[in-house]
């Protein structure tokens, strides 16, 4: 009698375990897929207003659609990357691309090739610590070439003229975004260790390039 009761109890526990085990496996797979997607593919960039940050949103009147950049090419680093046209984040910072392979262009600034400072940014690594588009940006040296392909297919060539590293909270923003003595394209990425309180890397690497043709 006792043996039979125990057997029934074991069977009922096993019957309960079966769907629970399946649920655990499905949950684990979903969690793993989410982490992989979040780590490799999607970079949340806290945009101020999605309407202002999409390619189709109203853009600066003085820049025609054909003059906007569509690709960034850096032959020395093997980079040939799509350009996202973005604005600002909720905290007023230039928006970074929402993935780890594209770069972002600050669409409320200057277009590459025009007088002023056009600015592009790209991630240095992804959320699993593997390399992103600008992982080797620090290998650029003065004299290296950078190219931008505009939406109309025109190719612009820039030359690296300076290379600086600044603290994340103390950069010469006017020099980076508002120079007016030439046609510049400035490339930005993160450097240094992670500052947990600021949720930011400690430094920013800025590569200053100037239009040559």
């Amino acid at each position: 009698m006792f043996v039979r009761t125990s057997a029934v109890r074991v069977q009922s526990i096993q019957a309960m375990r079966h769907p629970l085990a399946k649920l655990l496996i499905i949950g684990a797979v979903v969690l793993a897929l989410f982490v992989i997607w979040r780590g490799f593919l999607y970079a949340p960039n806290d945009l101020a207003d999605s309407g202002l940050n999409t390619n189709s949103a109203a853009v600066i009147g003085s820049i025609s659609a054909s003059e906007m950049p569509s690709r960034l090419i850096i032959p020395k680093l093997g980079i040939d990357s799509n350009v996202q046209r973005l604005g600002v984040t909720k905290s007023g910072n230039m928006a970074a691309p929402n993935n780890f392979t594209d770069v972002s262009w600050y669409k409320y600034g200057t277009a590459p090739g025009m007088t002023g400072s056009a600015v592009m940014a790209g991630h240095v690594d992804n959320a699993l610590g593997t390399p992103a588009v600008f992982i080797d940006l620090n290998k650029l040296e003065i004299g290296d070439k950078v190219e931008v392909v505009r939406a109309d297919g025109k190719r612009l060539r820039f030359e690296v003229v300076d290379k600086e590293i600044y603290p994340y909270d103390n950069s010469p923003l006017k020099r980076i975004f508002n120079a007016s003595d030439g046609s510049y394209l400035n490339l930005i990425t993160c450097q240094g260790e992670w500052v947990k309180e600021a949720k930011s890397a400690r430094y920013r690497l800025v590569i200053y390039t100037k239009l040559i043709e």
Partner: protein
Amino acid sequence: MKISKFLVLPAALAIFAASVSTAGAQTFGPRVALQFGTNGLTSSLVASSTDAVIARLLLDTTGSTEAVRIDSLPLNLVTANGALASSLQNCRVFNESNLSATLNTSSSATTLFTGVNNIALNSSLILQPNTLTTLSFRCDVNGTLVAGGTYTVNMNTANVVATGASSGLPAAVTIRGSVVVPPVYVPPTTPGMPATGAGGEMAQNIAMLVASFLIAGLGFSSLKKRVI
């Protein structure tokens, strides 16, 4: 059976009075209702931008017994909090079903002013009875846009000239609502530095991956036990 004239007369009078009062509500003739829509207007205006939707207008001829003709749109612009009417330029009216052709003449309301802007149309807009037509009013926004300013667009029934397309009779016009364009947004020319490193989240993500493997392992071992 004889019916008393004292009963017939009041009944006849009541029927006549009812028919007169119904006629007073104008069940015949051209009619159009103009309603300001709010869809697509959630984004703030941006300085130096093009083709910003200022207002959407739904023209409803439900109940009209003939087509309605409209030759102009008397849009009343009200500015507040320092907004300048002149910040809105190259203003155009479109039928939302065909955004490739403007409906207004190029000389009318290219730049807006505060008050009633009577926007003349290239050719008469003929609205068939019992139809809905959506128009949009779009402008370019120049660099003088004032941060925090608002624009309100409305219309006054008295200013709207709508007539029956065939009879020429004045149409009954109803106007519903107005539209307030959200506070303008002036993007910074010097934003802060972008956040371009995600590696700081690596430890957390790897921990989550390990946890997912452990959970999966637990599930598989539980399944295995059952099979044994």
